[in-house]
C-alpha cells in the first residue's frame, strides 16, 4: 500500500512540479529583459487555487464524466485537456516578444491567462487521480495510514525535485538555463500529445497503429528511473507510431517558436 501510494502520487506530483518549475524559470528569464511580461507572481497562486478546485471537482464528477461518449468520457476529457494545454503553451511561447510590456496590457493578460490555465489543467489531471485514489483508500481503515504516509513522502520528493531543478537552472548562465527550460517544455508538450493520442486510441477515437519499439525490459516504465524520465521527457516503453508522430510534432512546434530559436542560436529576441 505504502509503496503503491508513493509510486502513484510521485508520478502525478513530479510532472506538475517540473512543469511549474519550467514555466517559472522561463517567465523569470524572459522577465529579466522584459519587466512587464508577468510583472508579479500572482498567476502562480491563481493557477494553484484553480488547479486544486478543478482537481477536486473533476474527481467528484468522474463517475458522471466517465459515462459520456459511450463510456469513454474520462479518456476523451483527459485527451481534450492535454490538447488544450499544448495549444495554450504554444500561444504563450509564441507570444513572447522583445518589446517591453506594461502590466495589465492585452499581451500580458493573454500570457497570464495561458500560464494559469496550463498549470491549473496539469494540476487538475494529476490531482484528480490522487484524489480518486485517496478517496478509494479511505474505505479501508488499515490502509489509510500507510497510504497517507506514502502520499506525503511522494509529495515531498516531487516538490523538492521541482524546487532543486529550478534553483539548479537559475544558477546556470541565462541562455543555457533558457535552452534547458525550453527543451524541457518541448518534451512536456510532446509527452502531452503522446498521452492524448494514447487516450484517444483507448477510446477508439484514434486509429490503432503498430508499436514502434519495446524497451520495457531495458527500462521499465514503473521503475524509479522510468518514472523520472517519464516526468522529464515523457518516456514511454512501448509507444505506437501515432504517439511517436504526435510527440515529435508537438516538440517541433515548440522548437520552431521564435523564443526557442533565439535562445538556441543566441539571437536578440531574449
Amino acid at each position, binding site marked *: 500500500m505504502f509503496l503503491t501510494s508513493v509510486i502513484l502520487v510521485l508520478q502525478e506530483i513530479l510532472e506538475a512540479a517540473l512543469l511549474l518549475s519550467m514555466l517559472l524559470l522561463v517567465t523569470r528569464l524572459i522577465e529579466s529583459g522584459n519587466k512587464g511580461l508577468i510583472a508579479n507572481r500572482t498567476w502562480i497562486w491563481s493557477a494553484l487555487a484553480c488547479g486544486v478546485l478543478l482537481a477536486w471537482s473533476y474527481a467528484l464528477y468522474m463517475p458522471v464524466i466517465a459515462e459520456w461518449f459511450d463510456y469513454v468520457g474520462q479518456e476523451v476529457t483527459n485527451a481534450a485537456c492535454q490538447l488544450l494545454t499544448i495549444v495554450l503553451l504554444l500561444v504563450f511561447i509564441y507570444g513572447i516578444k522583445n518589446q517591453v510590456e506594461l502590466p495589465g496590457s492585452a499581451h500580458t493578460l493573454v500570457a497570464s491567462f495561458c500560464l494559469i490555465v496550463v498549470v491549473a489543467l496539469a494540476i487538475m489531471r494529476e490531482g484528480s487521480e490522487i484524489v480518486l485514489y485517496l478517496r478509494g483508500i479511505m474505505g479501508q481503515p*488499515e490502509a489509510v495510514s500507510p497510504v497517507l504516509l506514502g502520499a506525503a513522502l511522494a509529495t515531498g*520528493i516531487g516538490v523538492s525535485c521541482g524546487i532543486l531543478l529550478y*534553483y539548479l537552472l537559475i544558477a546556470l548562465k541565462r541562455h543555457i538555463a533558457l535552452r534547458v527550460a525550453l527543451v524541457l517544455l518541448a518534451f512536456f508538450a510532446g509527452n502531452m500529445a503522446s498521452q492524448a493520442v494514447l487516450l484517444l486510441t483507448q477510446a477508439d477515437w484514434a486509429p490503432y497503429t503498430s508499436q514502434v519499439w519495446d524497451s520495457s525490459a531495458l527500462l521499465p516504465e514503473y521503475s524509479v528511473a522510468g518514472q523520472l524520465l517519464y516526468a522529464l521527457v515523457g518516456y514511454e516503453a512501448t509507444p505506437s507510431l501515432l504517439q511517436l508522430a504526435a510527440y515529435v510534432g508537438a516538440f517541433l512546434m515548440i522548437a520552431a517558436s521564435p523564443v526557442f530559436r533565439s535562445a538556441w542560436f543566441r539571437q536578440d529576441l531574449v
Partner: protein
Amino acid sequence: MTSIRKFLILAIVATLILFNFIAALRGYQSSMFEAETLFDNQLLDLSRLVSNLDESRINGEFRLGNNVAFQIWDNDQLVAASFHAPQDLITPLLGGFEYSNFEGYRWRTYTRHDDVRNRWVIVAERTDLRFILAENVVLESISPILVGIPIVGLVIWVVVSFGLSPLTQLSSQLGRKKVGDLSPIELRQTPSELEPVLQSVNGFINRLSLALEREKRFSADAAHELRTPISALKIQLHNLQQELGTKSDAFVDLQQGVERMQHLVEQLLSLYRSTPDQFAAECRSVDLHEITQDVVARYYPMIEAREQSLELEGERCLISGDRFALETLITNLLSNAGKYTHAGGNIRLKISSAESGAQLVVEDDGPGISNEERHRVFDRFYRTGNSGSKATGCGLGLTIVKHIADLHGAHVTVEDSSFGRGVAFRVAFPGAGA
C-alpha cells in the same frame, strides 16, 4: 535571485527532504525484505514445533493463531490439520518455501519432511497479515522523519534568518539613512564575510562626505574671498567717475555688472549660511510684524525710486525664529517683488496669525509666474521666463527663502495674487502646538 533567505531555506529544506525521503524509501524496501526473512524463519521454527505435536490431541478446532494454518500428511493421508487448513493438500510436498491460495487468501507455506516419524508437515501463514504487520513496524520508523521535517524547516528558517541578520541590519541601516546623513554604518556584530563590504561602504561614505564638504566650502570661500576685491572695484569705479566726470552707457553697464557680481556673492554666502548644517539658529520669540516693518523701512527708498506702492497689513505677531534669517527671507521676497513688478506697480505684505500658525504673504501685480514654472522657482540658479531684461538676479533668492522656511519648519507656496494678476508667496509658519 530574488531573496537569499528564500533561496537558502527552500534549497536546504528541499535537499533535506529529497535525500531523507529517498533514504526512507530505500530503508522501507530493505526493512520489508528483512521482515520477510524474519517471518520465514518464524515459519520454519513453527514447522519444527508442529512436527513435535502429538496428532492424537489435534482435532478440528485446534489453532495456533488466526493467521497460521498447518497440515500433517502421512503417506498421502491427512493425519492432522489446524482450524483453518483445508482437507486437500495445501501445497505440493516438495520441501521449502512456496506460496499457495486457499480459504480466499494468499498464504506463505513451508513444507518439511519429518525424517523421524516419516511424515510431511506443512505450515502456512497469511501473506496479507504478514505484510500489514511488517509494514506497520517499518512505517513506525519512517513516520518520525516525515513529522520531523516541519520542525527541521522551522529550525533552518531561524538559523538562516539569524545568519543573515548582519546583512539585514546593513540593508536596513542603508535604507533608513536620510539624505544628509553621512555618518558611518555600524553593525552590532560584523561577520568576516561582511567586513570588506562594510569597510568599502564606510570608505565611500567618508569620501563622499569630504567631497561634499569641499564643494560647499569652495563656493562659500570663493564668495568670501571675492568680497574684498569687489568692494575695491566699486571704490575705484567711483573714483574713476569723479576723475572723468562723464557717465557714458558703457560706464553705467560696467557699474551694473559690478553691482550684480556683488549681489551674487552676497547671495552665495547667504545660501551657504542658510544650509541646515551651517545654520546655527538662535530661535527665540520674535515679532514677525516688527521685522517686516524694519525690512520695509530699509528697502523703501528702492520702492519709492520705482514709484511703486507698498502696503503692509497686519499687526503684532509673535513666532519662534531667528531674527537675522527671517530678515533675509523677507528681504529676498520683497526684493523679488520690487524687481519684477513694473514701475508704478503694487506690492502688498500681509501678516496674519491664527491658531494653526502665523502667515506671511508677499504679493504683487507683476507679470506673475506660470503654473509650469512654480515648482521650479525654488531650484538653485533657476530664473523664470518672465525675469525680464531689466531685472537683476542670480536665481538664488528663492532657494534661500526655501532654506530659511525649512529651518523654521515653515511651508512656502506660490499662489495667484489677490491683485488679479501677479504672484503671491505665502510662508506658513507652524502654530504653537506644532
